[in-house]
Structures are given as C-alpha cells and as structure tokens.
C-alpha cells in the first residue's frame, strides 16, 4: 500500500507523465512540417518557372525557323505551327535600332505596342489575343535576333536585323 502510494506520487496518467517530453516532440513536428511545406512550395515554384522558360524556348525556336523571316506569309505559317497548352503566349517582331528602348512587356502583350507593322500586316503571334497579361502574372521573356527580308526598301528587298520577342505567362 505504501509502495503503491510512492509510485502514484506525481503520476498524472500515461500521457501526463511524459508531458514535458511532448513539448520538444511537438516542436520537432512543427519544424519538420514547416520546412517540408517550404521545400515543397520552392520546388513547385521553380518547376513552374522552368516550365515557362522551356515553353518560351520552344516557341521562339518554332517561330525562328532558319532565323530568317522572308515575309508575313512565312511568319504567319510559323505562327500556326506553334501549339501551346495550359499557358498563354505572345510573340512579335520588334524593330532594332541603335537607341533601342526597353520593351514594356504589358503594353507589348495587351496593346501590341512596339510590334512591327508592314502596311496593315502586324507581325504578332497569335493575331487574335484574348488573354491579357496582368501585373501579378508569372512571366518569362525570351528575345532573339532574326533576319527579316524587308521588301519595302527603296532599293528593293533588303535583309535587316529584327528582334523576335516571346512572352509566356500564366
């Protein structure tokens, strides 16, 4: 009886007896799940970003072809060969000059700003833009120089450098 009393002194149940040790255990679980959640979100963000970069590379290579665009018909044909699922994109030819100003991607996509126009022909892909880019969209921009055979020069057809700009966003 006396022995039982000694054993029962301070005993507050099977869990209560280990209550102090539960504190570091719970703390450990919180640390583990917090870092796991953080790692998972970094992984998902990075994967999403690489997906955009990969898509931008794929689109620009599809549009560039042999890095020379002869006319609007060729550009249009290359544009129809681009097939993108689940993401939005806009590509266009931009004129190059010595005093080249940075391109505002939002007005480039939403208002066709800076996209080269030859007569009524706008060198944009796709022609009909339904999706708009927002300030909080995740965006990747890919730019590559390309030769364009311009038939509107005084001397006839000349080959001049242009910039192919591809914007991919989600």
């Amino acid at each position, binding site marked *: 009886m006396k022995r039982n009393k000694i054993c029962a002194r301070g005993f507050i149940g099977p869990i209560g007896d280990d209550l102090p*040790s539960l504190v570091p*255990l719970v703390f450990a*679980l919180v640390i583990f799940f917090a870092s796991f959640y953080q790692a998972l979100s970094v992984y998902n963000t990075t*994967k999403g970003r690489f997906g955009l970069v990969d898509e931008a590379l794929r689109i620009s290579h599809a549009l560039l072809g042999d*890095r020379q665009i002869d006319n609007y018909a060729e550009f249009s044909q290359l544009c129809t060969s681009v097939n993108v699922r689940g993401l939005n994109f806009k590509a266009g030819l931009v004129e190059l000059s010595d005093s080249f100003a940075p391109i505002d991607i939002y007005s480039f996509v939403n208002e066709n700003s800076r996209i080269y126009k030859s007569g009524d022909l706008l060198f944009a892909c796709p022609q009909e833009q339904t999706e708009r880019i927002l300030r909080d969209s995740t965006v990747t921009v890919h730019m590559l120089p390309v030769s364009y055979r311009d038939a509107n020069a005084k001397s006839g057809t000349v*080959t001049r450098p242009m910039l192919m700009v591809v914007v991919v966003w989600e």
Partner: protein
Amino acid sequence: MSAQRGQASITDAFFILLIVSVLAITMASVSFTYGRDVERALLSFYSEDYISSTLRVLLESSVPRFVDENLLTADEVDDLLTKMKEDYANTGTFAEDTKILIKRTIDTILSPRAASYDYMLYFWTPKDYPPDPKGMPHGNESDRFIFVYLKISDVGEGNNVERKEYFCEPQIPLKEATNMVLERAPEAAKTRSITTLFTRFVQSSGEIEQKDVVVFTGLIIWHTVGILPGKGSESILTESNLNCKLIS
C-alpha cells in the same frame, strides 16, 4: 525510478528534436539551391543562342553601299558579307567604311543588351595569303586577326560608365586573345565561331592567283565591369594585348 523514466523520455525527445532540426535545415538548404544549376545552364544556353543568332544575322544583313546612307532609303545596297569579301580579296583587310558598317550592324543587333554588356567581335584566319615573310611573333607563319571590334565600358570616378569603341589589331594568337577576355570577364559567353570562305588575289611570279581563305567569325559578350586587365599590369587595350585604337 519514475523520475529516471521521465528524464530518459525527455532526453529521447530532445534527440528527436535535434535530428529533425538537422533534417529541416538540410531540406531548407537543398530547397534554396534547388534548380540553381539548371537555371545557370538555361541562362548560359540562352546567351549562347543569342550570340549564335547575332552572328548569323550579322553575316546575312544588308548594308548601304555608302556608309552615310540609311539602309531603307539608300539607292544601292550590298550584303555585308559580300562587301567584306570584296575588300578582303584585294587588300587582305576591310576598308574603313566596311569596318564602320560592321560596327553599326553589330551595335544594332546587340542594342537590347547594350546597357549592361560589353562585347568583342573578331574575324580570324588560320592561314592567310601571302604568309608574313617575317613570321608572326608567336611562331605561326600566317594566322592572323583580320578585324577586331571591341565595345567596352570605362567605369570612371563616381561609377560613371562611358561606352568606348575600339578597332583592334592583336598580334597574339587567337586562343590567347579570347582566353584573355573569357578568363577575366564575368559570365563571359562565347559560341562556336561561324566559318566562311573568303577569296584572296595574290600576285605570284607575275600572275594573279586566286586563293581560298577560311575565316572564322566569333563573338564574346560579358557583363560590363570596366576595362579588363591584360597581360602583366597593363589593360587589355595595349599594344602587347589586343592592340586597340579608339574609334574617333
């Protein structure tokens, strides 16, 4: 006895906390660096892609016949490559007008990156005609730079950046000249050179002979850091390095 059991239990819990903390730190550090190598590889691939496109576009571009004219309004235009070949065939070098047209075209193509990048464009042949009778300083009888254009930023006092343009005539081998830039410039990107075939008219025993000359066109671009150091304590621009002259 029960008190001892409690101590063992809390010690175990602290061990678990320690192990979990180490795991959490490892996981966090791995996640912070995740994809960094892939990102660096993608950036490098993009830079190389940009450079190779630039070179191709440069060599396909048209230029006005006369340097002070505009391409779209000029009465006569030439292909830049044709103009270079025409100059080289007769003199073994490019005329001043052609040099200016090359400079202007490459500056236009690289204008989207001009704000933060410097670059070097070069035309080099492993075997020129006629071979230099004295031999080149590095022992190879006939390899030489035909033309080098260097656009580099000079960072002055108060971090004022001034873009300077040079035509250079390096008297050093290709590898030494390119390594000089690649080793000293941060994140310098270089792509495989484009090979073109030029023709050279050489006078040989009273007759004019036509010789084919292989010419490599290369481009290196790097983040602006100012004038790069060359051999010894000199800058890259000096006679024993790239031997550059400021374009007036």
